[in-house]
């Protein structure tokens, strides 16, 4: 569970202060799938990084599982998936997934067991011994997701994880991600640029707008948790998509 109240974050840059986040208030419940959508520079990445204690807010409060973000990290509360897979070229896929486990001091046997388990979860059972360059971009990103799942964090933070992939691969991975979410019951924070992606995946859609970065709308999705791909043609889906689009447009009317 993540709670932000009155969260402010201002970067001091050479061109003066940049308000990346202003007065952000948000509740994320356990098991939620929350998407953050908005134009570039509206603070999506910054907000995710603040949850992960990679940025320090300049005002307001944020708690992760009831803890300060730093403590939450030490308690292995979250796994973070970056935009690029960030796999080490000198480690095999299994070796890459083992990396956080080595760092966290899991036993050898436990490492091996967990690597096998998460490889299966992302459908890469037979690729453990391959090197990253031998995998497609989509498979690399799946390996990166597996890596962030390996140590049982109950929150998964993903910053445009499929942004660099083509539409077809993306559709497939979205479907897979929903299945994975259903199987594991994780809480997911997901940054995206794509309205259909946000609506298809989320139980809650957070619409943001830039200068200063802020939340302009929070939409609770009425869609069922079980979602076949063709739900995207249903009237409910289109209605939510419409509301997201309106929210984005309203944000722009400010400037």
């Amino acid at each position, binding site marked *: 569970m993540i709670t932000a109240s009155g969260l402010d974050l201002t970067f001091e840059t050479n061109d003066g202060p940049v308000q990346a986040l202003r007065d952000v208030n948000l509740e994320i419940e356990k098991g939620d799938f929350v998407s953050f959508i908005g134009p570039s520079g509206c603070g999506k990445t910054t907000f995710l990084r603040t949850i992960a204690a990679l940025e320090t807010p300049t005002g307001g409060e944020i708690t992760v599982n009831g803890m300060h973000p730093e403590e939450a990290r030490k308690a292995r509360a*979250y796994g*973070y998936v970056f935009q690029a897979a960030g796999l080490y070229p000198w480690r095999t896929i299994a070796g890459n997934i083992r990396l956080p486990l080595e760092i966290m001091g899991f036993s050898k046997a436990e490492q091996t067991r967990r690597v096998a388990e998460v490889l299966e979860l992302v459908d890469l059972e037979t690729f453990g011994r391959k090197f990253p360059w031998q995998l497609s971009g989509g498979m690399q990103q799946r390996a990166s997701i597996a890596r962030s799942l390996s140590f049982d964090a109950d929150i998964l933070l993903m910053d445009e994880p499929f942004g660099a992939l083509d539409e077809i691969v993306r559709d497939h991975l979205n479907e897979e991600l929903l299945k994975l979410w259903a199987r594991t019951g994780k809480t997911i924070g997901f940054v995206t640029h794509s309205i259909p992606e946000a609506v298809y995946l989320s139980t809650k859609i957070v619409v943001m707008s830039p200068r200063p970065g802020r939340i302009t709308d929070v939409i609770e999705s009425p869609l069922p948790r079980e979602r076949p791909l063709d739900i995207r043609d249903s009237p409910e889906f289109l209605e939510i998509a419409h509301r997201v689009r309106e929210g984005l447009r309203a944000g722009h009317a400010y400037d």
Partner: protein
Amino acid sequence: MDGVAAMKWFLPVLSVVAAIVVFWYLACVPMNVKFAMMTAERQGVVVSPEGVQARRDMSAILLAVRNPVVWADTWTQDKPRLPAPHQVVAELWKTTAEVKPTSKRSLVFHAWVTLSATLAGFVIGAGAGIILAVGIVHSRAMDMSVMPWAIASQTIPILAIAPMIIVVLNSFGVQGLLPKAIISAYLSFFPVVVGMVKGLRSPGPMDLDQMRTWSATRAQTFWKLRLPASAPYLFASLKIGVASSLVGTIVAELPAGGGQGLGFRLLSGSYYGQTVQIWAALFATAILAAGLVAIISGIERGTLKRMGLA
């Protein structure tokens, strides 16, 4: 590699080598032509123009063109200004295969002396370079304080003052391998520092943030991310470093007076006008350098392959 593929690079390489050898033989003619004409004249051969005085200010190329009769002699003199390839090869053969490797007349002996000082210097220099790089990457204070000195150290024309340093060290009783190794280490540490710092810093902000999300310690980030990421950079700089080490040793041997090492052979050759000996020592040095670089390349290939990077 199959035969056809091998031929593909073998032929061009062979042609280049052949072209160099031909050019070399041609260059010997004008270089050695004046002495050859003098000798020929003394033996009663008619050359044009006659008399040393008449030829003094003439261009060597012109003399060479006008006197094909002395060409053969330009390739067989005892102390030519430029020895011919076969003379250098013969000298190399004579001083390696035909004398005991422990003899002072053996190039193998001198090469070993040079090699041991080079290796000692290289190990010291590369080791110091790596340690400094680790410090520079991890401590801002060291980055600010050591790096400028490392750069400043390279503005000292060490090659020019090496003989002086050797002489000074000698007067304090520091002799033999050690002073040479010091110069050699001095020249090799810098490329290693620079390459290693670049390599250790090669992981991007995302890689480092990733490590932070796992609460990795600095030591873990070093061993699991920075060090492996630096491997390609390290090997590139080790190759430059080992070549610099060898140059350092050779220069340090010039005034050593110990009568040992390829540098000494170069110098003693030039004292006595033994150009063939100088060239043989030069080639021995080049072969040694190529061998050292090849060994590092081999280790590099093996390591990077095992790491999945090549």
